């Protein structure tokens, strides 16, 4: 019973970060209609920024959010503006050009980071990295708890932004009907760039917040891109609310898988869910929850 509760808690906390990753992906998917396969790699870059700030200047990871998030936001905007947007006008046999482009960008980012930081594992040891809080016999990792709360705050802020500002409304409108949005005077290209930046910023935040408890090496991006995709599919493509469900679900499934089946199968489990969801529920959990 305790093990069960413990697994539940750690899965849930991790799920908060996963939700952030998933929302970032789902925003981009909604507005651009493409899957960003460089998503995890953007997160990886953000993690290296956090690591460098810590290693060079001793900046606390939570403080470096103020650097990593804007930096990746700008990177995201630039990627969209200079690499993805021009492809919309090109007619080729492969309609998946944009997706393939994100694969290439992801590879380039990974290798540039390897160039700078080598393939060695890096991690940040803060004073609180291993701190846990106990509630009964259940332990809460302090950094994960903080992460969870920041994730909730960021998600709340995002939802407020999407619902109550003109830019936010324009993002939703562009996702729902791009041409109609243009007719309303929305500069869809600008909105698309902003959205890509926002999605990148969110995943950057998740990456930075993972640093106190996680290790880092250049190839870490790929698995997280896959996770982001699984989360989106679980939540129903393009649905931000769904991505929260998807994130929490994946966090729980991974935790239970690791506890009850075995660590080495954790990735496999993710992939199997990926297939199952793709096939059984093309609309994701959205179909079940109706949200």
């Amino acid at each position, binding site marked *: 019973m305790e093990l069960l509760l413990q697994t539940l808690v750690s899965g849930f906390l991790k799920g908060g970060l996963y939700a952030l990753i998933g929302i970032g992906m789902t925003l981009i998917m909604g507005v651009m209609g493409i899957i960003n396969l460089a998503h995890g790699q953007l997160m990886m870059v953000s993690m290296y920024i956090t690591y460098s700030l810590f290693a060079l200047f001793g900046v606390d990871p939570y403080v470096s959010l103020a650097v990593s998030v804007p930096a990746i936001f700008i990177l995201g905007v630039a990627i969209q503006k200079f690499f993805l947007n021009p492809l919309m006008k090109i007619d080729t*046999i*492969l309609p998946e*050009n944009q997706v393939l482009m994100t694969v290439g960008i992801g590879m*380039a*980012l990974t*290798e540039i980071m390897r160039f700078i930081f080598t393939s060695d594992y890096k991690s940040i040891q803060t004073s609180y990295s291993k701190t846990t809080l106990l509630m009964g016999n259940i332990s809460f990792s302090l950094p994960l708890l903080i992460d969870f709360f920041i994730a909730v705050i960021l998600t709340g802020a995002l939802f407020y932004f999407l619902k109550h500002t003109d830019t936010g409304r324009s993002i939703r409108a562009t996702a729902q009907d791009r041409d109609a949005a243009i007719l309303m005077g929305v500069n869809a290209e600008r909105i698309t760039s902003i959205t890509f930046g926002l999605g990148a910023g969110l995943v950057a935040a998740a990456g930075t917040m993972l640093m106190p408890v996680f290790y880092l090496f250049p190839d870490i991006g790929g698995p997280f891109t896959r996770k982001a995709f699984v989360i989106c599919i679980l939540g129903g493509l393009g649905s931000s609310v769904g991505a929260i469900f998807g994130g929490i679900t994946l966090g729980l499934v991974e935790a239970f898988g690791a506890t009850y089946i075995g660590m080495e199968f954790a990735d*496999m489990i993710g992939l199997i869910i990926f297939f199952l969801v*793709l*096939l059984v529920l093309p609309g994701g959990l959205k179909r079940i929850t109706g949200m």
Partner: protein
Amino acid sequence: MDPGVKKTAIFALLVLFVSAPLFVKNDYFLHLMILAFMWVVIGSAWNLLAGYTGQVLFGVAAFFGTGAYTSGLLVNHLGWSAWWGLPLGGVTAVILAFPFGWICFRLRGAYFALATLALNEVMRHVATIWESLTDGMAGIMILQTFYAPITTPLGILSSKTPYYFISFVMAALSIACVILVTRSKLGYYLLSIREDQDAAESLGINTRLYKMISLSVTAALSGVAGGFFTNYMGFIDPETVFSLHDISIMAILVGIVGGVGTVYGPAVGAFIMVIVQEMFRTGVFGLLSSLAEGTGSGAIITLEKHISSAHVLMFGILVVLVIRFMPNGVVGDWGKVAALVTPCRRANMRQEAGE
């Protein structure tokens, strides 16, 4: 190009390729040719499904690796010759492709592509985790059939010569296979599916069946190439043959650099990509290291040190550049490429455009 000229050119190339090992005894040259031929096979396979059927395959390594492992496992577990891995590798790849395609062809566009990516990853995990069968990360080592120079009436030939001919025949056959397909009913059906699935259905084309056929041919060719790879290299492990970068992405690059949906595109792309890859792996064929020694320039030394590890970076950048500037490849965008190379052609094109 004039068809007569084209035929003569192809014939000349065939003669050149067949006779090459008799003059060139340089092992390294033969090695590059063998790799290029192997990539012609994989690239043509990829092109059939992606370029001709419009179903983009992100994970060709799933089939390539399956073929490679078939070959290795036959040696390890049954004691058969690894050469059985060529035909049987094709068969096992098709066996893998069948349920996969049957289930995943209901997905369209990028989602199908992603499913193939996932299949790639699943296969790599399976090969890593299932140690009792595959020896996991340790990989499989086999004895190569040809490892010493071979004495023939024509003189002493490199041990790579048999591999050269086998890979050459495979490459020629796979191009022939693509030509055959494109000229047949199957080819018309595949193109129709690529252009518009709904229209294809309304013309009586069972789109799912023909997509399955296309996938099966692709898987079979890739599996055969995988089987060959085991025989040639003598060693495989999950990271090599199920590699996302070095196999799946490389295959896509071979396809798009050469020209998606063209018969000879993947062949052209294979040679370009193998050369580019080797250039990075060897520091522009050793030029950089000799330059570094000669000049003692610090910048060149650093460059030389890093460039060999940067081939994946180069892949990434190539993907970006090719998609951005040459989306139809060397063959498909030949006019553009030629115009870049020769200024007088550029003038001609401008004239034509003006008319």
